[in-house]
């Protein structure tokens, strides 16, 4: 298996505060990788460095084969990104959002037209083509945002709490989209606060106070921590945190 993400003692400091503290890990191609941690553990800061949005203080990292210091623009072309907070333009219609992101990622008009039909059909949004994204229920928005984040078939898609606030049924539909992308070879790097979703990942890491304190398959972690489920694993680790959520 090839690694699509490799980090070596990757670190980010803000003044005297070390947000991300020498993290080293690899993510394999096609893997669904769960990046877990409490609020303030440093997940978002780490993710921003991997997406080429923030320059590390020290350490090394390569994403999709590109260096996070020197090839940030190349990284951006080869990844997709969606977050719970912002991913689509609320005041554009469904089809306009698809066209906009398709255009940004350099798809041809023909490709965009084909993708538009594909998404609307797959998500059951045919009758919502002209609906403002603003008025879609959150779960639909998130499914559309995911589809748009992989419109250019990136090597890796980064998902920052994609299912926050989404109801139990829609959360499961969302994970089906992840599985389908994974089957096409797209690597998924996902953060979540739902510990049942941690079980769906091939491997997970758990960050505590800026460091990666655990890294393995969910089943191996449950054995290591003598836990019945990932929720217990998470509690065992996160309760040790010293740093107050910043």
């Amino acid at each position, binding site marked *: 298996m090839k690694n699509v993400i490799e980090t070596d003692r990757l670190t980010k400091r803000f003044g005297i505060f070390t947000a991300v503290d020498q993290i080293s890990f690899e993510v394999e191609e096609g893997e669904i990788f769960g990046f877990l941690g409490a609020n303030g553990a440093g997940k978002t800061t780490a993710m921003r460095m991997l997406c080429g949005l923030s320059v590390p203080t020290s350490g090394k990292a390569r994403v999709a084969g590109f260096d996070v210091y020197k090839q940030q623009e190349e990284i951006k072309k080869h990844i997709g990104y969606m977050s719970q907070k912002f991913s689509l333009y609320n005041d554009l219609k469904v089809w306009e959002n698809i066209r906009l992101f398709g255009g940004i990622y350099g798809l041809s008009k023909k490709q965009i037209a084909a993708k538009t039909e594909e998404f609307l059909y797959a998500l059951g949004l045919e009758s919502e083509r002209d609906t403002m994204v603003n008025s879609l229920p959150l779960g639909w928005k998130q499914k559309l945002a995911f589809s748009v984040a992989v419109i250019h078939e990136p090597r890796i898609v980064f998902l920052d709490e994609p299912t926050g*606030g989404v109801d139990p*049924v829609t959360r499961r539909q969302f994970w089906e989209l992840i599985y389908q992308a994974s089957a096409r070879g797209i690597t998924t790097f996902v953060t979540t606060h*739902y510990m049942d*979703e941690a079980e769906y990942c091939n491997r997970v890491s758990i960050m505590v106070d800026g460091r990666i304190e655990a890294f393995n398959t969910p089943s191996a972690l449950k054995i290591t921590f003598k836990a019945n489920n990932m929720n217990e694993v998470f509690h065992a680790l996160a309760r040790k945190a010293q740093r107050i959520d*910043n």
Partner: protein
Amino acid sequence: MNGVHIQNISKKYGSVTALQTISLNIGDGELFGLIGPDGAGKTTLFRILTTLLLPDSGSASVCGLDIIKDLKEIRMRVGYMPGRFSLYQDLTVEENLSFFASVFNTTIADNYELVRDIYVQIEPFKHRRAGKLSGGMKQKLALCCALIHRPDVLFLDEPTTGVDPVSRVEFWDMLDKLKRQGITILVSTPYMDEASRCDRIALLMRSGVCLSVDTPEGIRRSFNKPLYAVRAKNMYPLLEELRNYEGTLSCYAFGDSHHLTLKSYKKDIIHLQSYLKEKGFTNVTIESIEAGIEDCFINEM
């Protein structure tokens, strides 16, 4: 005090129905949960009960006060934490809290006892601007601001969305404490483990229909089919195969197992065992389990 009473409340936005003749009775000191998918009208109901929105029809009272006639008095008696962070981002933690205290003609010192447990956790950052706080801290500040005038009823709209599992447990421990002090709490949540911590829950469906109101235990008991947890080595192919299986009524992923209901019971389990073996699955286990709130929620959808 006299709890929260809702009678046949309906609300439409243009042609979209948000609430359809909802009736609920919430007792004094009750911790009451609202669960339902996005678009089930939970936020609309909160806004009506906090006098921020008028219903199209129906009536409601909070602390024995009418939501239309007595709106000014209700506003003094309730605390509201909206789903979206609504504090002043460019005021510090301390400034936000003293602002909300002064709006209600009180001071932080007067009601410090009530918010102390929560406020001590954010006090080290009292000079930081609210906009610079992380998610978990914002939640705690918002709760303090909703409590600082010692309300009788607290309305919390998805207070723990985006909050990590450890902080969520701490947040609900705080709600238990507030409940013990006699505060009535109405809370919505997308987390079904939290729904289990309520005294009673109402299950709302899309377009604002109330499906059931019961204790968590009562809702679990109403699940009237045998339920099985199925595991095997390759979990996603297993999910697809279980859905293809002709005897399957429903099958959903539930963390480390798939929860399955069958069209007919006893006979099919043995048949299913051999079917999965035939399809090449290894380490197959099928275990009879009790339904949780999440199973009930999915079942009702």
